[in-house]
């Protein structure tokens, strides 16, 4: 099946162009350092001139602080990587002419597009899984045991959150011929979705709800409202569908 041929090439490209390595290093580094940072904040404060006064005001770090630090770091830097890695995926290939070379052969455009999403998804899945293992290990030693099932769910939600922005950026990359326009539009969407996600009540229907759901799960609060998850899945499917509809008619 040509999807697998395209996927193999795309994932090889992720490795050759160091995108895979960068995602792995950045996310694993934050996975390892997040519990460390949570644990060390009071000590770090004492090292800052005048910080001794504040150190006493900071409550003793808990396992929840380590988890919150992990979620914040991995999602923030993960989204940045998702945008940067996806912005040129389609736009550069169309602009340079490499897409035309391949699509003049029996490679369906849907497979070509989907392989790009799948390879980026694979990169982020592997990077988040390893970052999750590293974070779990350090949290276990510094704070104590975490509920494994909840930890897996948390990381699953983080991956889904990152894939929303991979799919959106791929759509913009398909619609434009310039990667910079694509990343600009993606940043705009990130901001708009962030604002909408912050609206009281209404905000739980947007992808940012995945982050708060992840925190709730880890703190033992049951999540009753999963609209954010379904909307995120919907955004991924709609973005890929729209990208395919646009790409199928595009002249190369």
């Amino acid at each position: 099946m040509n999807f697998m041929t395209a996927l193999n090439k795309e994932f090889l490209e992720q490795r050759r162009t160091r995108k895979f390595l960068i995602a792995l290093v950045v996310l694993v580094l934050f996975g390892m350092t997040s519990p460390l940072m949570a644990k060390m904040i009071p000590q770090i404060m004492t090292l800052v001139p005048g910080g001794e006064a504040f150190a006493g005001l900071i409550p003793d770090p808990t396992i929840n602080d380590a988890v919150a630090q992990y979620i914040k770091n991995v999602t923030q830097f993960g989204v940045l990587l998702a945008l940067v890695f996806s912005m040129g995926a389609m736009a550069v290939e169309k602009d340079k002419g490499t897409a035309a070379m391949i699509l003049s052969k029996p490679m369906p455009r849907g497979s070509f597009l989907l392989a790009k999403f799948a390879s980026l998804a694979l990169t982020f899945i592997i990077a988040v899984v390893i970052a999750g293992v590293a974070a779990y290990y350090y949290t276990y030693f510094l704070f104590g045991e975490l509920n494994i099932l909840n930890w897996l769910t948390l990381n699953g939600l983080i991956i889904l959150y990152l894939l929303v922005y991979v799919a959106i950026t791929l759509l913009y990359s398909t619609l434009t011929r310039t990667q910079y326009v694509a990343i600009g539009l993606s940043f705009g969407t990130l901001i708009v979705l962030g604002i909408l996600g912050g609206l009281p009540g209404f905000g739980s229907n947007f992808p940012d709800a995945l982050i708060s759901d992840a925190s709730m799960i880890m703190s033992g609060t049951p999540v009753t409202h999963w609209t954010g998850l379904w909307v995120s899945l919907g955004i991924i499917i709609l973005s890929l569908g729209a990208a395919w509809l646009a790409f199928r008619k595009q002249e190369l």
Partner: protein
Amino acid sequence: MNSVKIEDLRKKYGSVNALDGLNITVESGSVFGFLGPNGAGKTTTLRILAGLAQADSGSIFFGEQNITKSGTAQKDRLGYLPEEPAFYAWMSPREYLDYVGKIFKLDAKERRQRVDQLLEQSGLKEAAKRHIGGFSRGMRQRLGIAQALMNHPSILLLDEPVSALDPAGRKEVLEMIESLGRECTVIMSSHILADVERVCDTVGIINKGKLITQAKKEDLMDRYAIPALELTTGNGSAAQMPEWKLRLEKLPGVTGVTVEGYSFHLAVKDVHTAQQEIMQDALAHNTTFEKLEVVKPSLEDIFMQLTGSQK
């Protein structure tokens, strides 16, 4: 091998008619030279044939099959080389050809053999493991031709295939294209008329998206056998040539003048009248020349006459 038939093909970009009812028939196994001035619609036609652009209307047949709306199905038998072939800079030519072989679903053994054969044929064997990112334009062009041949295509579309090559590379590729005519139907666009004249057996000339004429090369030469003269000036006349060219262009019996080295190639209305006018002009201006002879018209003369690129 398949014949290619294009019927009433139309394509508009905004208000510009890129193709305006183009009709072409390319016989199976022929090497078809696709000629036309810049913007005539050659590249658009080849991109539509390769499935990279869609026509507004019209039909395309490969053999008996109408492939106008057949998606990727017809691409199994196509080979396509764009004007500026682009590759993944991080790949080696061996990896790229292997990737193309996988797209055509060749099995591992067949792929390996074909890749080796094409690397050898395109002169890239020594560079087989180097990254394409460091290749010269000529090397990319040769790799472009190799990838177009990966699937033993029955129809090969070549857009300016030798434009980036040095004389030796050009000679090799043109010989290769000439020999391919026995294996597949080749449609080759070029602005280098001498190349088309050398390798193509059939020629189609288009202008403003329409076919002006299409015929076997020899028939075309006979049909448009406009008389032509060649005036050889000699080494000492280089400085006088620009001024002389202007004078020749003004002669009533001369319809076109091109300069080749120390010679003028003259398209004329009537050989004898033109000869007299040229000699009288030379005497009047005290100019000498080495030779004035009647020559066979070139494809370039015919092309210029048909596309109105002459005086």
